[in-house]
């Protein structure tokens, strides 16, 4: 599903964010990216949906070399990749329902699809009752669930999550992880960058550890350290 071949990313000023990274992630896997701050986790995630270009190396997503994708095809690549962030990136002037519906509207989904899919996904994340609320009327955990609903409403093949529990307390984080686990069980490949030791240690999934841009460990059913 995702394959990195000798991928490096060098930012200006010779900052090497990723160094000769190689890995192969299969369909339906759940992968934790761990490592100290600045080790290149976010950079790797940004490369996967072409928010950034690698300096060298090749990245394959769903069998396609995304470096060779012409720019008008990039949006179609992204429709297969849901994204969740530490800061949720919800639109404050839209309700919960509108935030999720927006993701379908802007890719041209017909209205009847929006009308059936959005309530279904809000049900899945447990926010049916709050669909008319605005983001600032929700707790952090609820906001993150809205953002997961938005990322998943189009049923992407891959879900990328960059520290989705970074701003949440442990109990709320567990709720979010249950949700991501559920999504993973539907066959969606999940790649999640995290600093949360207890989550990694309890889930016991594949762990890829980065250190100063290099992959230093790739372990099935791994732990944080």
């Amino acid at each position, binding site marked *: 599903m995702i394959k990195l071949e000798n991928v490096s990313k060098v930012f200006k000023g010779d900052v090497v964010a990723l160094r000769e990274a190689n890995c192969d992630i299969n369909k339906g896997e759940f992968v934790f990216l761990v490592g100290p701050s600045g080790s290149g986790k976010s950079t790797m995630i940004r490369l996967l949906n072409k928010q950034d270009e690698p300096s060298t190396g090749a990245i394959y997503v769903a069998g396609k070399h995304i470096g060779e994708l012409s720019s008008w095809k990039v*949006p179609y690549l992204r429709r297969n990749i849901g994204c969740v962030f530490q800061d949720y990136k919800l639109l404050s002037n839209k309700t919960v329902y509108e935030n999720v519906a927006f*993701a379908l*509207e*802007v*890719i041209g989904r017909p209205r009847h699809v929006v009308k059936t899919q959005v309530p279904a996904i809000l049900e899945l994340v447990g926010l049916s009752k709050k669909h008319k609320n605005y983001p600032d009327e929700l707790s952090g955990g609820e906001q993150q669930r809205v953002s997961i609903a938005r990322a998943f409403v*189009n049923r992407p093949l891959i879900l990328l999550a960059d520290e989705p529990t970074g701003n949440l307390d442990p109990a709320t984080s567990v709720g979010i992880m249950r949700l991501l686990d559920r999504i993973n069980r539907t066959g969606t490949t999940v790649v999640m960058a995290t600093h949360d030791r207890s989550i990694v240690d309890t889930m016991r999934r594949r762990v890829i550890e980065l250190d100063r841009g290099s992959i230093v460990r790739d372990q099935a059913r791994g732990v944080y350290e």
Partner: protein
Amino acid sequence: MALNGNYVFRETTANLTRNITLTVASVLTVFVSLAIVGTTVLVRQGAQNMTRQFEGGVEFIVYLDPKINDQQLAAVRKDLGDNPGIRKISYVNQEETYTLFKKLFKGQESILRNVRASDLPTSFKVEPVDKSVISVSQLATLYRKQANVYDVTAATDVIREMKGMTTFVNNGLTLFATFLLVASSLLILNTIRTAMFARRREIEVMKLVGATNWFIRVPFMLEGLVQGLIGGALAVGFVFLARRWLDELLNRSDGLKLLQNFSIASSDVTLACLIVVATAVALSVISSALATRRFLDV
């Protein structure tokens, strides 16, 4: 790409109203610059209409009394023909005069209704041997006093006046209009940039969930187009007013004055409006395309 009409309409109107001060500024600038463009076209066409009769060496026109009879006409023709200072004359009969008249005043029903072919003076177009200003004005004065001659218009007066006017129109107004057009493009560009900046969070989300560049751009480009078109429509209104003013400004007491004077035909107004609208569209499409260009590189 499926563009949802409802979505596009909602986004475009939201953008336009959110930024009302900037929107008004750019619409007004587009209006003023295009009003000048339109008026320039009108004046230029009018000047061209006026000088059109003096083509192919014709230096002055001897207008005859509309009530002239055939013998009197023959006498004037012989007099002009025998003058050694005159190289060539050509007679413009009533029918031809009326055709020219109808062409000049096409669409202006009140004028066309009030003036009949028989009200219009027939004329001789005269090409003198010596085309110097002194010689032409001497000949003009000579024939102005002749029996059965209604009036003489010399190309020297008219064309010199017109030349001055067209030069002013060409250089002055065109330069002025160009600056204003640049200003309006920049204002439209800036309005769209501001709208996009105000919505950068939305745009970021749209890109992440896989909206196409065109989907993101179209509402903003339409915003620019709407601004251009409103400004253009106001300018078209102004062109019609300007035509009215120019008409009123010129004394239209009789058929001769109508022919001699600066006149603007309806086809000239149409031309001016077409140029105004085309400029409005080109201006706004180019500025909005430039403003939203950064979306082409993801």
